[in-house]
């Protein structure tokens, strides 16, 4: 294990401990026993196959989104637009699956994967293009595109595609639904966990290899570390920016596969419940390392699912507070830990 990984693990662990302390403090203030709340959460998540399945199901979408964002973040491209990007792709995925119901499953599935990826990817390319051409910060444009995309999807859905008096598309053919874990592991029965989870694990591994073990990954990170030097070294910075944004945004569409093909069978307005934003925190917590993202996604999924189970004791907003505190803790602790190690070796 190299020093960098060690530093990261140390700072993440310290942050989690700090978060736990603050969480305890808050629960005490509102008159609850933190140990009890924690045990309810853990019990609910880990005691039953259903709880575990639901948690893994929630983690699946987070892994897809956060891996996409990590690719952007490594190039110092602050894509805040995952929420919009994933909705655009998911909407198109559902439409294609509904309207090509006669084609065989593999064809439809592949078509959905590709077109969803491309549609989400294109909505990543637009801010990237504006950034390259006019030097407009992608933070602004991607945030704005969240509003634009959600409004557009809303318009098309309500006016053309929605099932009457609902905010969702029609259901896709039952034959298209992905295998659920409960189909072969009764342990998970009742939960929505499906084989998208395995796809997510594969995506994380592939992203990891892409970022850390390939020429493209080295170029990507070089641009993130030092854009000027990258130009002087001869890297095509603009091309890398476009590719990073396309792949990054494209991957977010896969969370739609999890939801549509794995769970509900249709696209529904608001299905994403802000995972595009939560994924930013997930990626940050994992230091943009896709393997780390698997674990941070699990943590956030536990918080989310567990938050529901303690709804009676504490307001569910507590879990949002915990998510926020984790990010703040990691940002500050990281600095301190890094400085500590730097002073030890620097010369």
């Amino acid at each position: 294990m190299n020093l960098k990984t060690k530093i990261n693990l140390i700072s993440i662990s310290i942050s989690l401990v700090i978060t736990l302390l603050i969480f305890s403090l808050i629960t005490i203030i509102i008159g609850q026993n933190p140990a009890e709340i924690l045990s309810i959460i853990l019990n609910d998540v880990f005691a039953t196959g259903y709880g575990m399945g639901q948690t893994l199901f929630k983690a699946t979408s987070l892994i897809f989104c956060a891996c996409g964002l990590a690719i952007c973040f490594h190039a110092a491209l602050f894509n805040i637009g995952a929420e919009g990007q994933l909705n655009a792709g998911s909407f198109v995925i559902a439409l294609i699956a509904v309207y090509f119901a006669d084609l065989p499953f593999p064809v439809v599935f592949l078509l959905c994967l590709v077109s969803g990826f491309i549609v989400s990817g294109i909505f990543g390319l637009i801010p990237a293009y504006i950034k390259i051409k006019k030097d407009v910060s992608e933070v602004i444009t991607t945030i704005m595109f969240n509003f634009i995309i959600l409004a557009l999807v809303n318009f098309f859905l309500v006016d053309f595609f929605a099932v009457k008096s609902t905010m969702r598309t029609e259901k896709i053919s039952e034959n298209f639904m992905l295998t659920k874990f409960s189909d072969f592991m009764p342990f998970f029965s009742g939960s929505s966990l499906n084989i998208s989870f395995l796809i997510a694990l594969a995506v994380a591994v592939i992203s990891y290899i892409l970022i850390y073990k390939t020429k493209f990954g080295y170029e990507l990170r070089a641009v993130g570390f030092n854009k000027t030097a990258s130009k002087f070294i001869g890297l095509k910075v603009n091309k890398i920016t476009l590719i990073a944004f396309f792949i990054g945004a494209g991957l977010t569409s896969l969370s739609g596969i999890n939801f549509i093909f794995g769970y509900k069978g249709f696209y529904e307005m608001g299905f994403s419940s802000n995972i595009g934003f939560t994924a930013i925190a997930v990626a940050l917590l994992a230091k943009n390392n896709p393997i780390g993202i698997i674990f941070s996604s699990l943590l956030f999924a536990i918080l989310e699912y567990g938050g529901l189970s303690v709804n009676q004791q504490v307001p569910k907003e507590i879990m949002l507070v915990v998510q926020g505190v984790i990010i703040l803790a990691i940002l500050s602790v990281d600095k301190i830990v890094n400085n500590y190690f730097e002073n030890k070796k620097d010369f």
Partner: protein
Amino acid sequence: MKAVEFKNISKNFGNFPALTNVSFGIESNSVHCILGENGAGKSTLMKILFGMYQSDGGEFYIDGNSVKFDSPHDSIGMKIGMVHQHFMLIDDFTVLENVILGNETTTGLKINFTEIRSVLNDIINKYNLELDLDSKVSDISISSQQKVEILKLLFRDSGILIFDEPTAVLSPVEVKEFFKIIDEFKRNKKTIILITHKLNEVKLIADRVTVLRKGEVVYEEDIIDYNIDLEKLAQAIVGESRVSIAVDKSSENLTNETLIQLNSINLSRNNVKILDNLNLSLRKGEVLGICGVEGNGQNEIAEIITGLEKDFTGDFKNNNVNVSLVPDDRINKGMIMEYTVGENIYLKNGRKFIASSAILDDFSDKTINEYDVRLTNNKASLGSLSGGNQQKVIISREISAGNEVLIFSHPTRGVDINATAFIHSKIIEERNKNRAVLLISSDLDELVSLSDRLSVLFKGKIVKTFDPEELASYRSDNKISLTPDIEIKKEKDNQLFELLGKLMIGMAD
């Protein structure tokens, strides 16, 4: 009376001893030079004196009193000031704003500008700094920026002034100016500590020199009436492992085939003319030197040839060749500091899509062995290496790309004697391989000894090009010395240097 006295100062970074029992004194009201190779501990010692680092052992005295600094705040309080190699200025602020930042004299909440202005103008006049308080720092030259740093120290009334390689970024003319300022400091009873690599400068300006090697004091001597044995000094700096490579450049393989041609190139930025009808051609098997005061268009020429700058008018012909560039600013333009040696080279020269550790190690081992890069372990990030070693890695990367045209921009700036000699030999080696080399530098010794042809750039125009015959007529023999710093210049050289100096500031035709 000693202004500063070090007693048994030691400092370790991890297991690496950066300083071991360093003891010496610095007389007050003198110019004291500290010499040593990259990584010898000079900067570390100065950072301890300035309060940026704390020593692990030993103590030091200011004006005879034992002191302990926890941060630069403490040392500034003791009237110690330091001009770092990389200036600490805010580009978007004016000279005035930069100087008073952190030192605002206020009445209530209001900054007392009139009073400050008059104080600063007095200082500027007294030391002949030639600064306009209202210019933006981003608009003024490097040497003026250095003067802003100096003005900052004088405004705080610092008595002990530390300069970390102050002349590395200056042209010969500017160096002379800088020395005048130093003389003025001495006349005003200040103590000056100078870290440098250039031995000729030591001879010209120092009262005493201390040489550090591997964190220990190895040599100390007073300099009276410019008398010092530079040969001996050089020996002390590099120790036993002295390399002295003399490459024979006479092998004539000038095919005269032109690879790069710039015809009537014009380039303006913010309505300021940078290149003015510039003509230049670069041929196979030659070193074309570009000599000039920094900021006369050198960077733009390099950027046009490498294809980074496209916003120009005129005719640029590239005879279907690839170009490598060793940029002037290695930290911001030259490397990814977070990457290892192998990763930096793979980034540019890697052909395989998958970066296996075998490939990275291979790149890394080759460079480390061939270029004698010194590092604690092969997985160390490039940012943790000393400047000279970083430069070697960048040069290795650019050369091993195997391109027909190589541009070296200030290749030995802030690099020690051994590494400089090595880099020079590499440049000549490439030339002898029939590559076209463009050498941009402000070091006249370097330019004159390496160039086949030498062009002088002034205000974006080439005002004079010396062809090989003309250059040879100034040279005493065909062999070049690759450690020009310590060579006592021949008279002919001096004539050439004088001419170049004039051309560079537009004083000759």
